[in-house]
């Protein structure tokens, strides 16, 4: 620990007592996985899955007509469902990428020196941030054409790509807020001293301001990604074959009510195992940055 500059004796300026207490060694020394993964919770979920399978299995054996085992049925469908799940992840990557690029531009537009640019981008941000994701998704599915004609070239717009766009709109608006908030959290004196050193506005932004807010923005951005990943199941509503759709298809094919809980729980567990480490990592990052300031 390095001494704080200008350390003061005034108690009012000290961080809350909870922030000063030394964390137990176990919490700090645990490896990346131990800290990030929190195996206890994951283990609990897997246990729940196993229990529901056993319960359904018992019901299946007690049934009047002989049926295939629940576990065997799940194993049969798991590869297909997992493909669907991977598609959800792929959609989350693409939406996040598009949303981040567009959102960064939108966030930067909000601090533009040009008033019309600033106002327009502010309205756009507020609109997309406060609209239900599913409604935006519907609009994109039905308002975007199935192909684009640009200078004689026909670019097809498949349904899954329209869904990606639909999800990236709210992501864009949220990223814009993160970027704008991050930039505005940097004291104006940083802009001033950069200006006095003859840096241009663009240089100041890219070399001085943004590197400083990056660490403040990263946890918020990761949190947004975890939310987006879970929200990708919305695309099943507009007919995209994702993990959710394929799970439902499998259930329809089997026509068995006892599979309902374990099958969906299996899908849920995959999402959980994917998103929970991100959430833990976000918390770990937040704590690290909070201490360093």
């Amino acid at each position, binding site marked *: 620990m*390095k001494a704080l*500059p*200008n350390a003061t004796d005034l108690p009012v300026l000290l961080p809350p007592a909870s922030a000063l207490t030394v964390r137990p060694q176990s919490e700090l020394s645990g490896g990346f996985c131990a800290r990030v993964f929190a195996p206890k919770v994951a283990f609990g979920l897997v246990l729940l899955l196993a229990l529901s399978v056993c319960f359904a299995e018992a019901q299946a054996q007690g049934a009047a007509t002989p049926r295939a085992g629940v576990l065997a049925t799940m194993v049969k469908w798991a590869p297909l469902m997992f493909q669907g799940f991977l598609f959800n992840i792929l959609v989350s990557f693409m939406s996040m990428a598009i949303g981040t690029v567009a959102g960064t531009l939108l966030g930067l537009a909000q601090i533009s020196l040009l008033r019309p640019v600033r106002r327009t981008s502010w309205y756009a941000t507020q609109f997309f941030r406060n609209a239900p994701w599913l409604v935006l998704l519907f609009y994109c599915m039905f308002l975007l054409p199935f192909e684009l004609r640009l200078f004689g070239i026909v670019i097809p717009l498949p349904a899954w790509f329209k869904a990606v766009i639909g999800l990236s709109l709210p992501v864009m608006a949220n990223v814009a807020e993160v970027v704008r908030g991050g930039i505005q959290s940097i004291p104006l*004196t*940083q802009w*001033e*001293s*950069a*200006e*006095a*050193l*003859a*840096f*241009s506005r663009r*240089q100041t932004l890219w*070399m*001085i301001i943004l*590197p*400083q807010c990056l660490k403040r923005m990263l946890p918020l951005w990761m949190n947004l990604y975890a939310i987006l990943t879970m929200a990708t199941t919305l695309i099943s509503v507009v007919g995209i074959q994702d993990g959710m759709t394929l799970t439902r298809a499998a259930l329809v094919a089997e026509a068995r009510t006892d599979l309902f809980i374990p099958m969906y729980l299996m899908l849920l567990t995959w999402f959980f195992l994917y998103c929970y480490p991100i959430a833990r990592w976000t918390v770990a990052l937040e704590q690290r940055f909070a201490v360093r*300031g």
Partner: protein
Amino acid sequence: MKRTLGQPVVVVKSVEKRFGDLVVLRDVSLSVAKGETICIIGPSGSGKSTLLRCINALVPVTRGSIEVDGIEVNDPGLDKLALRKKVGMVFQQYNLFPHRTALQNVMMAPVHVLKQDRADVEARARRLLEKVRLKDKADAYPGELSGGQQQRVAIARSLAMNPLVMLFDEVTAALDPETKKEVLVTIRELAAEGMTCILVTHEMGFAREVADHVYFTDAGVIVEHGPPSELLARPKEARTRAFLDQVL
């Protein structure tokens, strides 16, 4: 201290600055010769800092003329880059870039703004850090330095641009007495080497010792000015006397 002075470098003529209805500067004129050190003293809110900010165009003036080595600052077509290459500024709150080390802070502007060769800049930056007695802190981040050390890095950072004039805006106001001294020593050396310096300060002892000329401002006007030995010891104006009685 008396020096032979050169041509005027900064000439301020009848400058007025308004923020809306608020008049911060009215009819301010002063002239600073090459190698001269002037101090601007006066109560808070008298427009001292605004005047400094006008000189390097951080704040546009409402009326009047400011000329820095032949560049007219109050000109819509002002080449800000050319102006700021000539004018260095050090702030009360140091304003170092916290994500860069002391050395990188000093090197950034010459490398990225002046596009100078990185190796040359680094050699110069290390010499400057040595000059402000922070040779061994080159790789420290601002958060690891004391206020006085940060302020000296900020001075080195400004000097790295090879400015013609240095502006110091209450640079010791946020420091405790011991660290204040290190910074004042650094500025005194600069002044002695012939750097043209404009200081806004509350350190009357320092002003007396280092300044060639002292300006007393109150409510946006220069009430009186003169050599420190006269102005600080035998002020002519009642307002100056009242102010000095309070701070000395």
